[in-house]
């Protein structure tokens, strides 16, 4: 398929791997931010093409994984109400709250619908004036413009039976949280190409400077990722820490200005809890005052409800790149996609799900090596 096959070419992959082997002289740990990149890496086995001294760790860039249990619980409570049509992207439905998921709400009579765009949810609101239509607005900067557009249009068109349950998170504060951790192992980042398509990459420049880490804005196809890793390792080997753009076919330095304007019109920055990590200052988005009437938490009286997470799941360590999925004792045993303990096993983009799906046979040997390392 044109514009896809070129980026999945075996020959190209091998030449990047060879180039990478040539320039690598020391061990480096690199984090890919986005869950989509994690899946490409594990699905195509990219990490096996890399020199053994390069370790990839998987970042917190799966929106499903980092949505706190509190918001999942609020979603479940709202979806269970008789007057509500609850709309969500597909992968949120299987994420467990405290004791059930949205699919179970649907099975017991809740009107829970998978939509492909928040604007579809808005259309459902227009078509069902007697119902309250709620859209579960999760995601990073990538999904924020479309979610903002839905609220923007609802306000302009006077659609009052529509609201958003907002769980938006932002990438740069999470990167700073990882870099500030005393347990941090990450020496370079592959930034998420689609987030930067919206936001550009100027906000990564101070991070690269202040923490002395190279950041390479990277796409999602196998060759994108291999090229991104090569660019990152070259910087590390040369002692540089700059922001570079591998994903030039989609990303410009300033990003998509109209999309950013829309985000700023509808959303403002707020502290947000990340599942498995905890609260990170200025790391999320909430509706601005002119759009506050579209806030589902306020509309259904849930704004002051606080729910703590189960301490059992170690997905926070996975999301910070401190633990590999197969190093968790529950992985593949007590924790599987059918019976997930945590979100990283549930979401199709979650690191644990990726390893379970594509790699679980290697668990024993690789885990043994992992445990032998000095971490």
């Amino acid at each position, binding site marked *: *398929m*044109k514009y*896809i096959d070129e980026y*999945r*070419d*075996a020959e190209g*992959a*091998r030449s990047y791997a060879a180039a990478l082997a040539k320039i690598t002289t020391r061990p480096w740990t690199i984090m890919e931010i986005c869950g*989509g990149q994690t899946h490409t890496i*594990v*699905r*195509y*086995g*990219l990490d*096996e*093409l890399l020199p053994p001294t390069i370790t990839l760790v998987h970042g917190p860039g799966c*929106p*499903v994984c980092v949505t706190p249990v509190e918001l999942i619980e609020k979603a479940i409570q709202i979806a269970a109400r008789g007057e509500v049509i609850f709309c969500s*992207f*597909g*992968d*949120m*439905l*299987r994420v467990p709250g405290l*004791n059930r998921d949205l*699919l*179970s709400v*649907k*099975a*017991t009579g809740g009107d829970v*619908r*998978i*939509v*492909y765009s928040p604007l*579809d949810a808005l259309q459902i609101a227009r078509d069902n004036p007697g119902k309250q239509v709620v859209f579960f607005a*999760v*995601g*990073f900067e*990538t*999904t924020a413009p479309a979610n903002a557009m839905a609220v923007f249009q609802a306000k302009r068109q006077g659609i009052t039976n529509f609201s958003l349950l907002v769980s938006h998170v932002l990438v740069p504060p999470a990167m700073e949280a990882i870099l500030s951790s005393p347990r941090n192992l990450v020496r370079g980042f592959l930034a998420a190409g*689609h987030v930067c398509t919206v936001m550009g990459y100027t906000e990564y420049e101070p991070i690269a400077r202040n923490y002395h880490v190279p950041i390479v804005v990277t796409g999602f196809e*196998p060759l994108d990722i291999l090229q991104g890793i090569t660019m990152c390792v070259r910087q590390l080997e040369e002692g540089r820490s700059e922001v570079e753009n591998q994903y030039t076919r989609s990303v410009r330095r300033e990003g998509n200005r109209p999309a950013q304007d829309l985000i700023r019109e509808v959303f403002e920055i707020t502290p947000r809890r990340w599942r498995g990590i905890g609260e990170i200052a200025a790391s999320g988005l909430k509706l601005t005052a002119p759009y506050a009437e579209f806030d589902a938490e306020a509309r259904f009286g849930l704004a002051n409800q606080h729910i703590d997470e189960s301490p059992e799941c170690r997905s926070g360590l996975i999301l910070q790149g401190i633990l590999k999925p197969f190093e968790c004792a529950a992985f593949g045993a007590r924790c*599987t*996609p*059918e*019976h997930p303990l945590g979100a990283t096993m549930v979401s*199709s*983009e979650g690191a644990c799900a990726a390893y*379970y*799906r*594509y*790699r*679980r*046979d290697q668990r024993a040997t690789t885990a043994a090596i992992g445990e032998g390392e000095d971490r």
Partner: protein
Amino acid sequence: MKRDAEFMPSCPIPITEYPHVLMAHGGGGRLMHQLIEKVFLSSFDNPILATRHDSATINPGGSRLAFTTDSYVVQPLFFPGGDIGTLAINGTVNDLAMSGARPLFLSAAFIIEEGFSMESLWRIAQSMRKAASEARVELVTGDTKVVDHGKGDGVFVNTAGIGRIEHSLVIAPSSVRPGDSILLSGDIGRHGIAVMAAREGLAFETTIESDCAPLADLVIQLLEAGIEIHCLRDLTRGGLASALVEIVEDTRYCIHLNESVIPIHEDVQGACEILGLDPLYVANEGRFVCILPKADAQRALHLMRSHSIGAEAVVAGDVTDGSPGRVTMTSRIGVERIVDMLSGEQLPRIC
């Protein structure tokens, strides 16, 4: 009290996990297999059922017959390339074909929702007549029920079928051997994407048509040519990946696929890229895999490619004695990975 004891044994599915049936329990993935094992196999346990084949092989009065049933609940009822009627005939014909049987007789039962359009019902019946004639089966018995408005979804169709087994092979996972070749009868993913595109709420335009087709004629041609078929499986719900995992799961062997030879039409690939779906798991209604000795593979491939429904057939992989019970695949960039069964339905991704 006795009645209670008989009909309310303690449920083997822990109540804390899923006290209610989810859509995923019918999605063809692991949850459905758990449901079948824990609820149905344990209740109706017998050696024929335990083979868990698409159709049962029964031997009344010395003859070998294949017997199967399937229910059709597709939405929308009409989609590019077919409708619930064509599916109901071909699906059951294909289940018989997967035993290597010659389909003979079908039953059809209709559960119709009050208020359903008579014109639509007529169209469905005509599709069934046409599909049955193409598949050379006769619809010889049936049933009609009407339920209250709101208690059905237009129409549900059940068909059951009987076919005659004219060969002496054991076509089953237990016949699969290391060294066997895996033949795939054509491109994958068209039915699932055609239905999804036609489904309300997904407004992307496509020209993709369902691959819905009867498979029995081609299978019988292979058998009549003396091809020693070890196993057959049509690639319906759960797609190619789930079918192969099902075959190999209880064996000591490994099925190994080569990703770069699996045919996927560009428009199907494009739709999958947009929706974040993996075509390996997307449903087909006119595709099957045939596992057979390597020595027969090229001859069988030639026969398949000469048939209208197998023009794009390929040797997609082979059976090895590598990781037991696993399906593995060499990815397009040359690295090996597991191909697993999904736990439930494929859900479109966020971004």
